[in-house]
């Protein structure tokens, strides 16, 4: 468990530093089962920070979300660091961003948090219904206790945690400057059973599945907006000149969008599941990414976001790389 007081103290200490511009952590949301990201600039705000199983969002996305403000003539650009709190899974995003040289290690202060799993809002709503109240939670090796405005409900963690937690191999941060809390023991593994299940479908069934799913897409782009690996300054999908992707929503354009995005994440997706979590129309986006993840692992023995000293898969070449995927 993470001691919130210690977490807040560390945040204060970090925010006081001259070389830190802002700190991103979690705070209690106004209602519901998911905590809100907290973007802090002043140590006095640190008391609102929390960490518990409601802290589902991968905050690594915020490093690139901050707009670069124009620097006034003669002024020095603000090179102070961004401090960010990450769980084990989230830390893979930082590793991968660093490997891709999205920014340099000196640009960030990583406050790592060992994690026992986070709540899936959809599962929670199915179990306990929607709530207008504030929620906090505790997790141990078996159970999750969800406190909905004082009403505590305890469930097996497999029934309420995110799917990614149920196959979590990296509960402890793979990169961090400060570890908030004791490292936890790995308690799950990933056998890609979900990908196996999907692959059992016939091509016709798969088409039908994606046809139904992508038809729902409203192209709000929340999946790419929240994705820590979708940090291109100008996204190929929204670029206007030249315009590669049409804005019209139909099965063809929507499919094109999702396939493009999946390809752009090949060997890069760190499986934080944020895209699927935020999708307002419940498109199981991770199915594509998970299939890609396994293929990348099997074909190239590559796993993104685990080796800070590594290099991007597509930027590396090995004469033994398989070529049979080239048609």
């Amino acid at each position, binding site marked *: 468990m993470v001691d919130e007081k210690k977490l807040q103290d560390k945040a204060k200490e970090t925010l006081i530093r001259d070389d830190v511009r802002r700190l991103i952590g979690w705070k209690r949301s106004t209602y519901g089962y998911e905590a809100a990201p907290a973007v802090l600039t002043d140590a006095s705000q640190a008391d609102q920070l929390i960490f518990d199983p409601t802290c589902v969002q991968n905050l690594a996305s915020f490093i690139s979300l901050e707009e670069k403000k124009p620097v006034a003539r003669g002024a020095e650009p603000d090179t102070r660091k961004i401090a960010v709190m990450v769980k084990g899974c989230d830390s893979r995003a930082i590793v991968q961003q660093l490997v891709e040289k999205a920014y340099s290690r000196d640009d960030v202060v990583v406050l790592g948090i060992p994690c026992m799993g986070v709540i899936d809002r959809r599962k929670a709503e199915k179990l306990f219904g929607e709530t207008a109240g504030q929620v906090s939670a505790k997790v141990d090796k078996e159970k999750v206790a969800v406190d909905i405005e004082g009403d505590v409900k305890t469930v097996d963690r497999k029934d309420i945690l995110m799917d990614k937690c149920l196959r979590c191999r990296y509960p402890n941060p793979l990169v961090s400057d400060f570890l908030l809390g004791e490292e936890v023991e790995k308690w799950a593994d990933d056998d890609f059973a979900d990908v196996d299940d999907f692959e059992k479908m016939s091509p016709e069934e798969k088409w039908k599945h994606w046809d139904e799913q992508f038809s729902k897409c409203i192209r709000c782009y929340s999946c790419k907006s929240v994705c820590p690996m979708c940090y291109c300054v100008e996204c190929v999908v929204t670029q*206007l*000149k*030249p*315009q590669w992707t049409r804005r019209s929503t139909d099965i063809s354009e929507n499919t094109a969008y999702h396939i493009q995005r999946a390809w752009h994440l090949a060997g890069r997706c760190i499986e934080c599941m944020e895209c699927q979590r935020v999708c307002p129309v419940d498109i199981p986006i991770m199915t594509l990414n998970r299939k890609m993840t396994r293929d990348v692992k099997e074909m190239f023995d590559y796993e993104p976001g685990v080796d800070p000293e590594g290099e991007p898969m597509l930027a590396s070449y090995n004469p033994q790389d398989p070529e049979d995927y080239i048609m």
Partner: protein
Amino acid sequence: MMDESNPYLPYIVRIEDAWYETPVGDRAVKTFRVNFTDEKVWDTWSHEPGNCAMVGRLGIGESMFCISSSPTEEGYLRFSIMKAGKVTSALHELEAGDTMTVRGPLGNAFPMAEWEGKNIVSIGGGIGQAPLRPVINYIRHNRDKYGDLKVIYGARTSDLHCFKGEFDEFTKEGTACHLAVDVEEEDWPHFVGFVPDLLMEVAPEPDNTIAVTCGPPILIKFVTQNLEKLGFTADQIYTTLEERMKCGIGKCGRCNVGSLYVCKDGPVFSYATLKEIPEAFA
């Protein structure tokens, strides 16, 4: 007026003549003189200086441009278009004989009737002269209704001046024309420097005078400041705004500055109005 039953349907116009105002290339300005393929449109068409239109090309799209001809220039419309993005690049490919789409007139206009009897000073920079041209021509064609007319205009180089030949004509007619280039060039007989500085040199009297200015935002900003130094009040200063637009009829949302839609409530605004809207200068 355009098709009242469907404001998204464009008129088709044929290009009667097209020429470059400035050297060919990126950011070149090309002027198109166009006429409706259906001449009956003229029976219902009426525009005023300042009005805009969505000009486009089927298969590419449309963008908002000011109508750079005065309604007193009969039998055609003129658009002077700088090559910048997707639509303007496609329009620049067009020559005499080709067709374009026009949806308009849109937006408000300069209050020409209100200004009768007043002196007018027009202060423009670069392509910003396009919305001022109809104002100047409207006054030239209704000369007895207005007082003194002064034209102040500049661009980075003399090559980049739009409507080059026309300034000589104005001068011949007795209109004071003050031209500028930003940097010294050979055989340039006029002012060297920025338009706001030229304005201070010309120093028009604010009494019974309206100043109309258009150009890049930085020019508008300093011209406005200098006009105030010269004693002009905010309600004596007019300018036009531009924003990204799609519908042109106050529906699609994007061109708002505060609660005003530039496409409908504008593009013409008095500085007195704009002063109350911080977003106008964003």
